[in-house]
């Protein structure tokens, strides 16, 4: 596009690909300040920079939701397709046949993947499509303003929804059941671990599913807290005026609601110190609730499906948010490797490769009776 490129000048630090960090950035985020999704976008920028990935060698994908908006907030120099709600997998599956040297990087939400898109979510796993598949999991529908998602805990109370009556879907278990070849669970606030695991996921061939717990500071909260939806509502009018004067990124733009409501800025929840293997740590969320993070034990063998199933069950029983790489099988070919494709990218083939020779026409007609 015609926006001038950020030039890597003499005093700008560049990586081994000759690119500066700016080459990996995206447009400014329009998500709420403090949204877990933002920190994930930032980690993607860092990871790609540090891994010397050429942005043109990646394809970005997403479905629909706040989470699915984030591919605009990283890798401006990368082609992206923000498709339909729940249908990211199919678009990615087709697109990655265009040039199989490219790696897909998809961002979806818990609504996008575990509700409307559950079917495609599971089939993209069994096909081992060559992409990183991030689910930014906040237990709610952020973009439509706070309905329960399929990953919401039973008993969760939300302002307009009442109490959630149903048991949650476990993204990692679904991925495991569908034979994903890389499965991890992370907490968006653990930047170091997010980065490490993202690097491993980028390096994997085939599908890498990462379920990242990414708190929605706006809707997954309780009625009576300071950082509540109600507070924003009560202050809506005054704040609207502000929004027109200064396009404050803390205004939640493009939501599927009737009006733009003010969301009080909140700091992203970040861990203060690194976690060590096997550690269990309690983390306070914006609404005053807390989650228990548990790092996988030292010596855990992530290549064993039975073990993976066991630790996921155990975590569920103990109400732990288990983080780390839960399962990995680097031996399975990705979808595009399963087919015996020509070396030239399919999308560089021309008429002479694609249209059968004129001589074949008579033969075909003779086959028709």
């Amino acid at each position, binding site marked *: 596009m015609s926006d001038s490129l950020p030039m890597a000048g003499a005093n700008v630090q560049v990586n081994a690909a000759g690119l500066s960090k700016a080459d990996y950035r995206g447009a400014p985020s329009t998500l709420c300040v403090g949204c877990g999704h933002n920190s994930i976008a930032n980690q993607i920028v860092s990871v790609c920079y540090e891994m010397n990935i050429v942005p*043109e060698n990646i394809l970005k994908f997403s479905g629909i939701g706040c989470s699915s908006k984030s591919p*605009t907030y990283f890798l401006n120099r990368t082609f992206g*397709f923000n498709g339909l709600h729940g249908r990211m997998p199919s678009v990615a599956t*087709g697109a990655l*046949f265009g040039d199989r040297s490219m790696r897909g990087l998809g961002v979806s939400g818990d609504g996008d993947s575990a509700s409307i898109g559950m*079917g*495609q979510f599971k089939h993209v796993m069994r096909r081992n499509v060559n992409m990183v598949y991030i689910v930014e999991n906040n237990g709610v529908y952020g973009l439509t303003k706070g309905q329960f998602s399929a990953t919401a805990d039973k008993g969760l109370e939300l302002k307009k929804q009442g109490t959630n009556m149903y048991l949650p879907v476990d993204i990692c278990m679904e991925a495991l059941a569908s034979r994903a070849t890389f499965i991890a669970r992370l907490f968006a606030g653990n930047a170091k671990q997010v980065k490490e695991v993202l690097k491993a996921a980028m390096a994997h061939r085939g599908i890498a599913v990462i379920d990242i717990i990414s708190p929605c500071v706006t809707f997954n909260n309780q009625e009576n807290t300071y950082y509540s939806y109600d507070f924003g509502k009560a202050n809506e009018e005054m704040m609207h005026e502000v929004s027109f004067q200064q396009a404050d990124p803390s205004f939640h733009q493009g939501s599927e609601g009737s009006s733009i409501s003010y969301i009080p800025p909140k700091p992203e929840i970040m861990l203060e110190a690194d976690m060590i293997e096997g550690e269990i740590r309690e983390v306070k969320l914006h609404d005053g609730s807390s989650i228990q993070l548990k790092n996988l034990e030292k010596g855990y063998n992530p290549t064993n499906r039975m073990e993976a199933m066991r630790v996921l069950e155990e975590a569920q029983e103990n109400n732990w948010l288990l983080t780390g790489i839960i399962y990995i099988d680097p031996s399975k070919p990705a979808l*595009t490797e399963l087919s015996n494709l020509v070396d030239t990218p399919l999308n560089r083939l021309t008429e002479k490769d694609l*249209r059968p020779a*004129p001589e074949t026409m008579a033969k075909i007609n003779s086959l028709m009776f």
Partner: protein
Amino acid sequence: MTERIVNDFSITVGTVNGSGSSTANTTILRALFKMGIPVSGKNLFPSNIQGLPTWYTIRVSKDGYLARRDEREIVIAINPNSFAKDLDSVAPGGAFFYADDIKLAVTRTDIAVYPMPIKSLVKSNPEITANLRDLVSNMVYVGVLAQMIGMDMTKIEQALDFHFKHKAKPIALNMSMVKAGAEWAAANLEKKDPFYVESMNKTDGMIMADGNMAGALGSIYGGVQFVGWYPITPATSLAESINDYLPTLRKTVDGKETYAVVQSEDELAAIGMAIGAGWAGLRAMTSTSGPGLSLMTEFYGLAYYTEVPVVVWDVQRMGPSTGLPTRTSQGDLGFAAHMGHGDTNHIILMPGSVNECFEFGWRAFDVAERMQAPVLVMSDLDFGMNQWMTEPFKYPDVPMDRGKVLWEVDLEKIKGDWGRYVDKDGDGIPYRTIPGNRHPNSAYFTRGTGHDEMARYSEDTQTWVRVLDRIKRKYETAKKYLPGPVTHKQDGAKIGVISFGSTDPAILEAQQMLAGKGLKVDYMRLRSLPSQDEVFEFIGSHERVYIVEMNRDGHLREILMVEKPELATKMSSIAYNDGLPLTAKFVANAILKLEEK
């Protein structure tokens, strides 16, 4: 005996679905075709795999009329359950052949009646083991019929040779039963009906094929690279034929593949994959029927607004869910013309013969890539699943049109100065880059959210209006790239007929019937939408125009009326769909009736 009637009658076979009769019926069809007699064959079958009554009708027409006829001069009854109905359906003076193990009374005296000892003939052949009996028993009626109407045995053998792919054993086995039937008939039956076939040369240079096979081959000659599909009658054999022919037609020296075919988990995924592939620069397609098309609509709208080339084949049938899945229809048109989220209109190609199924197979990709738009090819069950005699497929006469694509060298030349949705040429068609392009200015973000000319997120109302108006302009430009209508004129005709798709043979025949009754009509067959000016000139230049289509509500007429309301009063609808291909008689009568008013 009355005068001989040669090469001008219809044969209907009433059998049980799944009983293996289709080999026998297509053998009759193909043998007649090889005798040089114009024929058409249609399966009128229920949607189960086995058990229900099914009919196959063959029309023999020295004049080359290929439409279905209701009249049944010759009926062959093999199914006890439809015996009474079949007997009833024989035209007066016709012939009725039936399996003599059906112990039902033949009550008619106005027709010739021929019992056939199918079971005992099969049993008396020592080479046919018990397990093969059912498979070959249908060949007995082929033989009896052949003997009684004068079919050429060598042509029957050719048909079997083709059917069994030159495998000597099944050919010999089946042929032995044909001969047994023929010999028995020669010795035991006395000809009491007037129907005969005689060799002609009217099928010289023609081929026999079905529309799905033709569409599949056309797609391959169009360079298809990605197919995402989900099984549904009557579209299934289209994707399956692509799969069958790709390996041989697109062989590379090292045996590697230049394409991918994925059977997806549903139609949402089928079109999603195809759109992903189309976006990534591949010639991508999917094929389905009404229920599947309904599922594809959200994606179809997305492809419209994000301007992604993709080809979708709709081989139409009737109804929702299972509906009448083995009946033909043109009932999807009204919905398909605008399917999506709203404020969408679509490019539709409408093949009117099996040959055009082939042609539009390759052309559709050129149009889709040129227009950067989804293109719908509307076929139907009658084309898709029946064998038709047709002109041989013609190799594409124009090079592939890959449309406005910028690769690295192109971006280099313009110093990376481009915008995905900028209308640089004033024809409404922007330039696109393809993922995999490594130029640092090549990337853009594709989204269903509001976007501006630079593909940036925008909720600005005027930007939305501007982009949508530009797309509308693009669809004006499209008319120039679409196949225009085909017109059959009659000197001095004041009224016209407009139609599309598989109604063509019925209308061509009706045109002759009406001329015989002194009513001249001009006939225009549309081959695409949106319509070119020619179509409205045709309507404008006639006193009245009848728009004939196989649906209840007259979708094509609605579309044309909305397009040119000032001509609306000239357009009359003849819309009817009972799942069977239209007959010329129906069309002619409908026009005569409306003309009387």
